[in-house]
């Protein structure tokens, strides 16, 4: 299942000219404010008719201006979480949530209201009208409304921005589940790189109405040109091996075993772990007596430096590559050079739950 998007459109001075192709899963759109993310999502939703374009989900043609085919929004079977919730003011929260149900075909077995309400923590709001909800409450109802429409395509425009960390951490896994179990394709706009790392199957970086880069989260998050050196990260595929009594989970990765704080997946599950380059410490010798539990021996594959004081050092460890961001001063002091053996030191707790997602990346 692939998502093919190719649209050209003019809005005042702003030109949208974006093309990309993404495999099944979550396609995350990133880019600075005003880059055209919302505009692009709107064309996929059918709310904006681009001058020229073609949008195909698998074999299902949503738009093909050349063939003169334009599917109206209500036939696209969408669940669109808008930037700015757009709740129906004249309906109760419950009615808002169930609105899409009405129109979904009976056969589409969607989520149950109870489950979604529970997940979003909005049970106490069901009878309320949306007018006086708080910003975050509103946003959660909007997410619920989209999810409950039994969509064949989910569009989510910064769905979690108005929420606090705790709430985000509760809702993110739900999107993962949609991606992995229900396999609904998701087009997701985000400013948060940890959301990108966890969710994305494909990342589309936009700039000035154009697609600046497309790739796997590993490629894009490691791409300094896209995310900036400070946010560079590696994404490792991992398998849950065991949960230990002291609350740590043991993972097997191509780079060796990894100990992380408890991960809510059964042993055997495939997960992915984002490791921010700034969280990795390097050591020529194997260090002893450190509180950091994960020490992975590898070989320096590559050292990149830029304008700043930092350097990105990529190690090959087993089958994987892991990038560390350290100071150029350390590179010099330690005499690091490509080809040399080196140890990567990683704290267990440096990997936050928001950095651990389910599903492999390729």
């Amino acid at each position: 299942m692939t998502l093919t998007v190719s649209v050209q459109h003019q809005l005042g001075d702003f030109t949208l000219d974006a093309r990309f192709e993404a495999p099944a899963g979550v396609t995350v759109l990133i880019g600075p404010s005003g880059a055209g993310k919302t505009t692009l999502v709107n064309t996929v939703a059918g709310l904006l008719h681009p001058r020229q374009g073609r949008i195909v989900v698998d074999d299902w043609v949503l738009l093909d201006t050349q063939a003169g085919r334009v599917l109206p929004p209500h036939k696209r079977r969408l669940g669109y979480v808008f930037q700015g919730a757009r709740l129906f003011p004249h309906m109760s929260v419950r009615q808002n949530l169930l609105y899409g149900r009405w129109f979904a075909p009976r056969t589409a077995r969607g989520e149950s209201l109870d489950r979604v309400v529970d997940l979003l923590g909005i049970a106490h709001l069901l009878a309320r009208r949306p007018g006086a909800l708080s910003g975050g409450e509103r946003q959660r109802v909007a997410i619920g409304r989209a999810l409950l429409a039994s969509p064949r395509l989910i569009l989510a425009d910064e769905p979690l921005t108005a929420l606090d960390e705790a709430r985000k951490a509760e809702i993110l896994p739900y999107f993962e589940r949609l991606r992995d179990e229900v396999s609904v394709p998701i087009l997701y706009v985000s400013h948060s790189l940890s959301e990108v790392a966890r969710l994305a199957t494909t990342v589309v970086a936009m700039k000035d109405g154009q697609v600046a880069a497309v790739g796997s989260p590993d490629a894009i998050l490691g791409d300094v040109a896209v995310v900036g050196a400070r946010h560079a990260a590696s994404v490792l595929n991992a398998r849950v091996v065991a949960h230990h009594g002291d609350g740590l989970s043991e993972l097997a990765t191509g780079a060796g075993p990894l100990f992380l704080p408890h991960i809510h997946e059964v042993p055997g599950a495939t997960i992915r772990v984002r490791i921010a380059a700034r969280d990795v410490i390097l050591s020529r010798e194997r260090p002893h007596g450190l509180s950091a539990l994960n020490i992975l021996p590898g070989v320096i594959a590559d050292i990149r430096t830029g304008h700043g004081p930092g350097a990105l050092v990529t190690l090959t460890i087993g089958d994987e590559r892991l990038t560390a961001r350290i100071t150029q001063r350390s590179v010099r002091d330690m005499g690091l050079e490509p080809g040399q053996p080196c140890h990567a030191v990683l704290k267990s707790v440096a990997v936050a739950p928001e950095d651990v997602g389910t599903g492999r990346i390729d």
Partner: protein
Amino acid sequence: MADFLGPDAWLAVLLSLRVSFWAVLVSLPLGILVAHALARWSFPGKQVLNGLVHLPLVLPPVVTGYLLLVTFGRRGPVGQFLDTWFGIVLSFRWTGAALAAAVMAFPLMVRAIRLSIEAVDPRLEAAASTLGAGRAWVFVTVTLPLILPGIIAGAILAFAKAMGEFGATITFVSNIPGETRTIPSAIHALLQAPGGDSAAARLVIVALVIAMAALVLAELVSRRVARRVSGA
């Protein structure tokens, strides 16, 4: 009440209520449709439709009444058609009075509804469409509830106008007691004769009481609906 007024005037009151009620009820769907068309669609002849709707406002009522007579009268093209095919006769019937009232009130109704349609945030309608609602469903489930205050305002304006309509009614369907003699016709008749003032005044008071009751009711309903619609 009937005592205060005398039986004839009482008849006029009942008739006016019936005429105004049906005038509003029957024209409301059309009013909503036309208001929607004017507010949201674009089609050739839109300005003509707009003009047509306002016609009864601009023309002296007598002229409107005359045009109604020519069109919907027994020998008028539409009148004949209605008579032959549906057995509907409007001339000299209370139904004709209702038609006259509806036509005269139509511009007020349409404008009120149109204004509220224009105030509906199209992004909400777009949101509904992404959730699977087609045009008609969007209208019924989102637009319509949101414009309810405007519909109520339009209906009450139309009702008030219908209660007060005189010129077009008497010209179109005459002034037949129990059939087409509405309150204004009765008042007018009373005022034409010297000394009819006090009887006329009584009728005026009744008209006012009815209109006031309708207004207050509409105000209450409308405020309630507006609160619902504002989502608080």
